[in-house]
């Protein structure tokens, strides 16, 4: 069937758009044909179950996150407001800070209250300790000790004096010295005393020394008693101050049991450590640290937004610490220290009560991140896992904070392959991510979707702050989207590519000082983008035009045909004609796929060759052996061939070789074939047609040139305007065929010939000529077998 120009490109109907530019359109989220995925979002976001986290797959990498963010914000707003979370010092287990939950918005208030309390304590406690009342009571206690000690020493001193011995003070202690009538007996005088008197004095002093020692032994216990009295006094004074200051807070937070308990522990701790609140002289010694009240600080880890909106968090770098939080350290004189104020939140904390969106590819490439996420989701608690602790690299004493309950719905976005891989290899995955939102990249080009399409464009315009796009430009983008979908009846919703094209068109429009982006800007942008990526295609085309790569676009050849291949290089896809040739000779029915023999052919290509072999055998040698050997080759192909889209082409070449009928080289062919000779759809039809057209156009269109494609591919045609125009001008032709016989007729100009019984075909037809050739080969083979000269088996090897 020869296709008319209207079948080659399905224009977007401008009449369906009642706007002039996208500035008139709303920019609300417009998802084209994604009901399945949206339903999945609705279900996952609102179902109350721990394992119903969501995996959103499909769509382009750049748009997944935005779409997920928009959907979550729109569909997940009916969750209850989550609480604030704070970490506070654990007075009974300092290495395990306590997590406190407060109503949303109360976290910062509580922090402020406690900070104010500490500030007041730092003023009031020293004031209380400096007060006359305290000083008086303390001095009385200390004085009692002094008096007690002095009294004990005085008693001993008095006794010793009565014995003519004086108790005297030395720099480090006490000693006894003899006296007589109140005057010291100096050593010289002592030596002069009678020996008996000396011994008497010495004996007395030895006895007094023992008594002194006994007396002094009591001093430490008296000091201990005094210290205990002072400690009790300090407790009383501090308690009094703390009670007066903390009372208001206890009333304020009396409904919060955990906070009430914390404040009670706080009070006891302050009383216990009242000395740290007292003023100390500033020291120049850096090792003498200033008073540290960090133990009394409140670390607000999760503070819900002031507008009470549900948190929707996207973590761009989902490393383990960024997910589950981390405990930072401070260096102090070469030692790393930490405390509860250095606990930093992770994305899971920030998303408590809301939603967390993560890109699965990034998540899986971060060390331990996936494990950490699963552990949190499974346990329902956010543990402060760290890589170094997990691997035992860190052996220092660290914090083990009380984990915060995880009340977060996690949305993973990514490629389908990750979903299937995780489903296959990670048993926990399916139990945690029970809901899948499968976004379709291709949607029907229906009236409904065509009408939604301009809103998608308007949204991108708003997001990227582009100039408004006029109606024609939107229509052109619609056609571009259909071309991306490789289907005139479908639209691609690859926002990345649409956005890229729009940005480039906008750039061109701005360069031209336009206020609106027009359809010509879209065309120019496509050309520019293509030009930038076109080097390889140009080189290939250049080699064809310079006849380095041999492609005929005119004349006729037996056993030679132009096939069409598609190359995909990065962002560029282009079609390239390839010469395929076939040769036949006497043999035993084998069709030799030279590509496969040379290990350049892929399995699908091999399958295609086998199918066409089957077709040949069943059509022309149903009742007798096929006495030929044929060989097929992609000429000048050095990089490998795969796919079955050339199987019909190869069959045409074989039929030409068998029939001896030449094939018109002004045609190129694509399409796969089945065992019945039906021509089947292939991919990349637009690029293939345009690839051959470009060669013909450069060499000069003759009016005889064209392409044969499967009829099933007509709906995929979204061809370039210049090609459509050439068809319109009858300078280029596109034939769509259903069966191999239709194609061979076009290529040879000879009727294929329908079977008229017993493997007989009308005389002069292509099939009849093939049958004749095969019969000749068969007879020759029989004759050679009789003469014993048949070596076709060897040749076929």
């Amino acid at each position, binding site marked *: 069937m020869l296709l008319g120009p209207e079948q080659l490109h399905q224009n977007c109907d401008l009449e369906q758009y009642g706007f002039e530019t996208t500035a008139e359109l709303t920019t609300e989220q417009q998802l084209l044909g994604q009901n399945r995925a949206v339903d999945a979002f609705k279900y996952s976001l609102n179902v109350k179950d721990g394992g119903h986290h969501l995996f959103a797959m499909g769509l382009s990498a750049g748009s997944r996150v935005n779409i997920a963010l928009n959907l979550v914000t729109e569909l997940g707003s009916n969750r209850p407001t989550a609480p604030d979370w704070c970490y506070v010092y654990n007075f009974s287990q300092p290495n395990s800070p306590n997590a406190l939950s407060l109503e949303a918005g109360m976290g910062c208030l509580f922090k402020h209250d406690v900070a104010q309390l500490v500030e007041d304590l730092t003023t009031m406690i020293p004031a209380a300790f400096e007060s*006359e009342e305290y000083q008086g009571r303390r*001095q009385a206690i200390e*004085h009692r000790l*002094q008096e007690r000690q*002095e009294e004990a*020493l*005085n008693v001993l*001193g008095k006794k010793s004096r009565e014995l003519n011995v*004086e*108790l*005297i*003070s*030395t*720099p*480090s*202690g*006490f*000693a*006894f*010295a*003899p*006296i007589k009538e*109140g*005057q*010291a007996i*100096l*050593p010289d005088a*002592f030596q002069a005393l009678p020996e008996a008197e000396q011994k008497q*004095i*010495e004996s007395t*002093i*030895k006895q007094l*020394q023992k008594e*002194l*020692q006994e007396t*002094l032994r009591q*001093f*430490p216990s008296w000091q201990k008693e005094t210290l205990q009295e002072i400690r009790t006094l300090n407790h009383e004074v501090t308690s009094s101050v703390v009670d007066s200051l903390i009372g208001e807070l206890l009333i304020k937070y009396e409904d919060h049991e955990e906070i009430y308990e914390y404040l009670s522990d706080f009070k006891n701790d302050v009383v216990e450590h009242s000395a740290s609140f007292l003023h100390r002289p500033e020291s120049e010694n850096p090792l003498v640290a200033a008073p540290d009240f960090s133990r009394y600080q409140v670390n607000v880890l999760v503070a819900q937004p002031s507008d009470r909106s549900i948190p929707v968090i996207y973590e761009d770098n989902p490393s383990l610490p960024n997910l589950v939080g981390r405990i930072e350290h401070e260096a102090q004189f070469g030692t790393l220290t930490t405390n509860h104020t250095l606990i930093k939140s992770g994305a899971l904390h920030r998303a408590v009560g809301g939603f967390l969106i993560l890109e699965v590819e990034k998540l899986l490439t971060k060390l331990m991140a996936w494990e950490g996420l699963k552990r949190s989701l499974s346990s329902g608690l956010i543990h402060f896992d760290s890589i170094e602790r997990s691997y035992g690299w860190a052996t220092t004493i660290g914090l083990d904070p009380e984990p915060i309950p995880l009340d977060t719905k996690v949305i993973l976005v990514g490629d389908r392959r990750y979903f299937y891989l995780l489903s296959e290899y990670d048993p926990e995955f399916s139990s945690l991510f029970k809901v899948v939102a499968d976004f379709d990249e291709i949607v029907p080009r229906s009236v409904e979707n065509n009408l939604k399409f301009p809103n998608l464009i308007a949204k991108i315009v708003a997001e990227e702050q582009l100039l408004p796009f006029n109606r024609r430009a939107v229509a052109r983008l619609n056609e571009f989207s259909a071309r991306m979908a490789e289907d005139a009846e479908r639209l691609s919703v690859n926002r990345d590519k649409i956005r890229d094209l729009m940005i480039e068109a906008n750039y061109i429009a701005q360069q031209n000082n336009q206020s609106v982006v027009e359809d010509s800007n879209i065309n120019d942008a496509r050309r520019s983008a293509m030009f930038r990526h076109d080097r390889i295609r140009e080189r290939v085309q250049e080699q064809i035009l310079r006849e380095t790569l041999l492609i005929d676009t005119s004349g006729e050849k037996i056993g030679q045909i132009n096939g069409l291949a598609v190359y995909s290089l990065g962002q560029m896809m282009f079609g390239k004609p390839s010469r395929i040739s076939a040769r036949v000779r006497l043999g035993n029915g084998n069709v030799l796929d030279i590509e496969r023999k040379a290990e350049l052919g892929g399995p699908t290509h091999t399958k295609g060759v086998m199918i066409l072999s089957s077709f040949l055998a069943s059509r022309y040698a149903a009742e007798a052996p096929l006495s030929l050997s044929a060989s097929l080759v992609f000429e000048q192909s050095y990089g490998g061939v795969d796919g079955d889209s050339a199987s019909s082409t190869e069959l045409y070449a074989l039929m030409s070789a068998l029939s001896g009928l030449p094939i018109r080289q002004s045609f190129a062919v694509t399409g796969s074939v089945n065992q019945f000779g039906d021509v089947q759809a292939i991919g990349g039809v637009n690029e293939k047609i345009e690839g051959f057209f470009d060669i013909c156009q450069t060499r000069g269109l003759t009016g005889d040139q064209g392409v044969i494609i499967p009829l099933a591919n007509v709906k995929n045609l979204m061809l370039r305007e210049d090609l459509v125009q050439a068809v319109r001008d009858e300078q280029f032709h596109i034939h769509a065929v259903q069966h191999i016989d239709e194609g061979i007729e076009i290529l040879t100009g000879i009727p294929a010939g329908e079977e008229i019984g017993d493997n007989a075909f009308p005389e002069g037809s292509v099939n009849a000529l093939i049958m004749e050739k095969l019969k000749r080969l068969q007879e020759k083979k029989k004759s050679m077998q009789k003469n014993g000269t048949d070596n076709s088996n060897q040749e076929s090897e």
Partner: protein
Amino acid sequence: MMTSELSGLPRQIALALDATPESIRVLDRVAEIASILEARLDAVFIEDEALLSLSEYPFSEEISLYSPRQPLQKTRLEQEYRALSKQLQKALEQSANRWKLHWQFRTVRANLNQALEQISSEIDLITLMTTCRGLQRSYQFEHHSATIMSRFPGSCIILPRHITAGKEVMVLIESEESRLPLMALAQRFASAGEKPMVVLVPTTEQHPKPREELYRQSLLGKKIDTIQLIPIDTTEPKKLAKMLENRSVHMFITSKSDTIFSVETKIEMAEKFKAPLYLLG
């Protein structure tokens, strides 16, 4: 060398230091006094020869709170003296810097009496720590503060063993003759420390009422808002103590020669107040 407050302030103050913990405690307070008087502070650390000679007894042992009993050795005593001396000198240097004083520190080894007599012959005002109560603080037991003070003709500052920072400057005026110099001295301490002045005026039979009124009149002519006049109608130490028990005294000033109250009573009062006693000679 008698110094009159009318004729001038002391230019040089001696501070006798010994090997007791009180020595280091009083340093800063004496430095403050010297600074207020704009006098040079001459600190003398006395290594008591008599104490050193204790080691010559065959039975001498030193018994302390935290060390085992051990023979009292002269070399160890000397080492302890040297260490104390360095510690006191450093503490004095810090106090002197704080109060911006001229100062001198020296160590002498001598008999305590002789050393004090030597010092008193060279300076205008001597500062002593009380040893009249509690343990004897030196081997020269008979030389408690009162004794030493009586031998020294000039002004004395007696430092109780416990000193606190009080709020008032208290002056005890026992005679008309000493009123003006004592008031001048008290006024100086009160002004320097921005402290109120409390004047104790005995109203005994020897000092009839008209004199007290006259005295009050002369005071009212000065700074009425910083002066409080307290009549004293007793010389009984216990009654006096009761009357003044809740005062917060920073400096207690009185005459050395007036005798309504004995020197012992005055020292007792200073100990109660936990304030230095300035006995104007």
